């Protein structure tokens, strides 16, 4: 087909679509709702949730996972568009991880080294990352679908950010069940759980997000 004919046809198609920001905001809401459902269906809220709301450990956990989700959303908002990059989102994600790692280091420094493993492992280390990944799975799907309607030009990074958004929201939901309080636990197992879909997204992004 001649290029001029093509242009005429394209210009004649006036179907309008919402921008990626709206799509991604809806996707984040959907992903959070899905994660909450998974958490409620499999594990339920922690029994002492109301008391926990008054504890710093609860908010450290919620703040960490929500900050990761927010950072991932900021990154996606830029990476969903051709040529987009997001130093702000990257910096926020890095800052959250570094801050929690520092809190964990300070916590461990105050304890004798023979207790470190016990603190890091807590009561539920063996199930925590897998549960976070499970709670994040539907969110990952939703985020990828939203991203497919956009136009990421760095698909591996965009896929990773989609996984991190799902992971952050899934971990936030799971935090309403989990009663671990140690920063070291958070720094290791929550981070690991949130990274599961981020890694999957980085690997599958170039395939899933082609346009």
């Amino acid at each position: 087909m001649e290029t001029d004919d093509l242009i005429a046809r394209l210009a004649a198609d006036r179907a309008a679509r919402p921008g990626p920001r709206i799509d991604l905001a809806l996707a984040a809401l959907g992903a959070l709702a899905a994660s909450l459902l998974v958490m409620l269906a499999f594990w339920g809220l922690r029994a002492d949730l109301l008391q926990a709301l008054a504890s710093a450990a609860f908010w450290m956990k919620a703040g960490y996972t929500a900050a990761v989700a927010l950072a991932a959303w900021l990154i996606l908002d830029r990476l969903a568009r051709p040529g987009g990059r997001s130093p702000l989102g990257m910096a926020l994600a890095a800052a959250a991880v570094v801050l929690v790692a520092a809190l964990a280091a300070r916590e461990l420094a105050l304890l004798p080294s023979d207790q470190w493993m016990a603190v890091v492992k807590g009561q539920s280390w063996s199930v925590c990352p897998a549960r976070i990944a499970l709670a994040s799975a539907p969110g990952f799907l939703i985020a990828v679908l939203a991203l497919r309607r956009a136009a990421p030009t760095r698909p591996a990074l965009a896929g990773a950010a989609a996984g991190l958004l799902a992971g952050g929201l899934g971990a936030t939901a799971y935090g309403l069940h989990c009663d671990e309080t140690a920063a070291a636990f958070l720094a290791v197992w929550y981070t690991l759980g949130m990274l599961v879909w981020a890694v999957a997204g980085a690997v599958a992004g170039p395939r899933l997000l082609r346009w």
Partner: protein
Amino acid sequence: MMLGALDGDAAAEAALLRALAGHFRAYFGRRMGDGAADVEDLVQETLIAVHLKRHTYDRARAFTPWAYAVARYKLIDHYRRRGARREVPLENAEALFEDADPVSRTARQELSRLLDRLPARQRGLVEDVKLAGLSIEETSRKAGMSASAVKVSIHRGVKAMARSVGRGDR
């Protein structure tokens, strides 16, 4: 124009796509070798992508980087499909994608050396018409010059290039 195209103005989008087609043709031509059979396919593919993905353009940002990011993505995609698994991490890495044929590569390098000696404005005109394949009218509209002035300038530019070849002055 992009805003008009986004707001549902078909004429504005047609004008935008026509202008972009010229730019993309030049962009792909520089990287794949002028007149390569795939250039026009890739131009069309990129125009379709611009149209289908126009909702991902952020009005608060510059339009040109967005359009070229689409073109670059389509170029990488093209190389990938062709089985040449190569990345394009930087704009400067374009030399990697020059045609492997050494003769045409030297010719192209020669050409760009000669072009470099022309004044910027004249160089742009020569590139648009002789390399990107725009018509004299398109070019004169783009440059804001009359068609005859464009023709004269190009004629002089090409002559100047021929002279420097003749002198063996490289």
